[in-house]
């Protein structure tokens, strides 16, 4: 009978994470688990609702990436109205892309400045009173200001394309319900500094350079922390390019062998299964061809840069070549390189936004197409945290009778558990107590994935991060909380 250490950030009523580490009598780590309460009630919530409401209803799943859910649901309902991803009007597709890349830009910027930079600037052992975004503002005001304004720029793009920053209605089955006005385009393209696309690209490059400089000075941490081999999965454009909005499924092994290639995502159920484990509410997806034990995979920035062949914008492509060369052309399996990959994607998003804003198709008036209606639709996008699956089937009254969602955090369930286990084995083994630094190292492993711990509900009265220590008899002997 050993001691059990519990790390429990109860930050939502429904959604919260909990890390449990089981030690044996000698103090060695026996087992570690990262529990996430996954709320799947939305799949029931949308049942009985008209299918055209799905793109708006599902935005309530998440307050941080509602656009991803909006667009995945829109793509699925496109299929129901008989419109394939390549059939949208140029204005429809490009407005959706601008919305999506605006969301990627703001989300990736927020992650770097809010979540990653405090750990990089101050270190895992720094005083928690400083190691946060307020500390960044205090010590590096320029970085903090850039973070806030990059987030705002992306939010304004979402407002212009989706109609609202939070509950956007821009994407509708078969297209989009608004185009971009000349005034809107000009404000993003030529607006006064700093809120224009050119400055955003420059700041994205600056953030990436900051990370690369930090990496040079801290190779042991960035290269070694929570590194483990895994399969990788993402959408990839037909020609192998990185594409966040549309593509076919590609999966590779830890050493680069292709498991899936050019797979139509409408057939995802043939290739991907979801395992239920008794100790977790969240399912564990896996590639059926490899089985439950070895078929788990990573999604998100690191996976995307491992699966794609190139990035179709010049500055990000140059950085991609450096990134790929670092792992000698092989897949990169280092968890903290997710931050590096995320910043390359930030730069790419800025470049795509700039290119799209120069495209006159955004000003077009042909917004929606209709085809032959069907009963079922699947829509996938690459959300900031990874591949997002939406699947709906409707009845003869146009009501949704079945919905299946696999969100990015679910896809990353096993990788997050592996990352936490690495920390448990390397940091918590043989420990009698948990220091702030140890606790933060567990969080650093989780932060690389930035899991969505169910944004669905947010209310006051939540508990802070809490650590509990139990003795061999199961008695609580210590508690640590923020």
């Amino acid at each position: 009978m050993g001691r059990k250490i519990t790390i429990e950030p109860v930050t939502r009523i429904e959604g919260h994470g909990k890390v449990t580490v089981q030690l044996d009598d000698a103090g060695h780590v026996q087992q570690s688990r990262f529990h996430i309460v996954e709320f799947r009630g939305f799949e029931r919530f949308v049942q009985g609702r008209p299918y055209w409401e799905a793109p708006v209803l599902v935005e309530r799943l998440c307050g941080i990436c509602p656009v991803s859910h909006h667009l995945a649901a829109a793509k699925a309902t496109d299929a129901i109205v008989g419109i394939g991803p390549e059939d949208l009007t140029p204005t429809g597709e490009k407005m959706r892309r601008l919305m999506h890349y605006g969301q990627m830009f703001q989300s990736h910027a927020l992650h770097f400045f809010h979540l990653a930079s405090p750990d990089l600037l101050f270190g895992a052992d720094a005083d928690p009173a400083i190691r946060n975004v307020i500390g960044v503002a205090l010590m590096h005001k320029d970085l903090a200001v850039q973070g806030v304004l990059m987030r705002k720029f992306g939010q304004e793009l979402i407002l212009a394309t989706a109609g609202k920053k939070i509950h956007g209605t821009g994407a509708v089955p078969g297209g989009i319900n608004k185009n971009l006005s000349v005034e809107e385009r000009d404000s993003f393209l030529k607006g006064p500094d700093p809120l224009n696309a050119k400055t955003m690209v420059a700041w994205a490059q600056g953030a990436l350079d900051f990370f690369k400089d930090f990496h040079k000075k801290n190779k042991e941490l960035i290269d070694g922390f929570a590194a483990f081999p895994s399969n990788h999965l993402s959408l990839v454009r037909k020609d192998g390019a990185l594409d966040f909005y549309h593509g076919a499924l590609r999966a590779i092994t830890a050493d680069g062998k292709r498991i899936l290639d050019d797979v139509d995502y409408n057939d995802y159920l043939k290739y991907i299964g979801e395992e239920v484990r008794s100790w977790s509410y969240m399912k564990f997806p896996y590639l059926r061809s490899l089985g439950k034990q070895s078929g788990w995979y990573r999604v998100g920035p690191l996976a995307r840069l491992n699966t794609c062949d190139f990035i179709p914008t010049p500055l990000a492509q140059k950085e991609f070549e450096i990134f790929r060369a670092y792992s000698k052309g092989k897949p990169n399996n280092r968890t903290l390189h997710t931050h590096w990959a995320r910043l390359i994607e930030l730069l790419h998003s800025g470049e795509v936004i700039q290119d799209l804003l120069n495209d006159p198709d955004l000003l077009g008036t042909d917004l929606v197409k209709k085809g032959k209606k069907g009963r079922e639709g699947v829509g996938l996008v690459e959300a900031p945290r990874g591949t997002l699956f939406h699947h709906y089937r409707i009845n003869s009254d146009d009501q949704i009778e079945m919905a299946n969602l696999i969100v990015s955090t679910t896809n990353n369930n096993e990788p997050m558990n592996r990352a936490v286990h690495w920390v448990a084995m390397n940091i918590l083994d043989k420990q009698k107590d948990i220091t702030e630094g140890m606790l933060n190292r567990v969080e650093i492993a989780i932060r690389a994935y930035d899991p969505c711990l169910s944004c669905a509900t947010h209310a006051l009265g939540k508990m802070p991060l809490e650590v509990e220590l139990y003795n061999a008899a199961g008695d609580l002997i210590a508690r640590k909380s923020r």
Partner: protein
Amino acid sequence: MTIPAGKRAKVLVFGIGNPGRRDDGLGPKLIEQIGGAEFPIMLNVAGEFRYQLNVEDALTMKDFDVVVFADASRSGEEPITISEIGPAAEIAVTTHAMSPASVVALCLELYGHAPRSYLLAIRGYDWDVGEDLSPAAEQNLQKALEILREFIGRLEESKG
């Protein structure tokens, strides 16, 4: 309060929560009601709906004199509590939300000043999927609006 006499005080109310999760929608529903409510003529009251607070809200609030963060509460006194909050830095586990005190702290660090800030906690009871408030939360919402109007009115009286 440091609002100069004669100045039309700017008050911002953030309504925080998810209206798709029953009583979690108390904050956003308060914002809807503020739109039709009457406030003293010398006050300029604006409402903003948020799922969660985040870094850009430091920018949003910087030009206001007073900010009220209205959120549903799973415990505490009924129907509401109002308390003044100061800046407080907190570590984030994910990027998904910031606390009101963290947003106030960020505003202070980035812009050198922060509005006087209050937390309005409205007691909720039911967090299931759904768009309607529970009957008890509905009653609390009506009382919250009355108390908020009175509270904001007192801000006007206390101008120096």
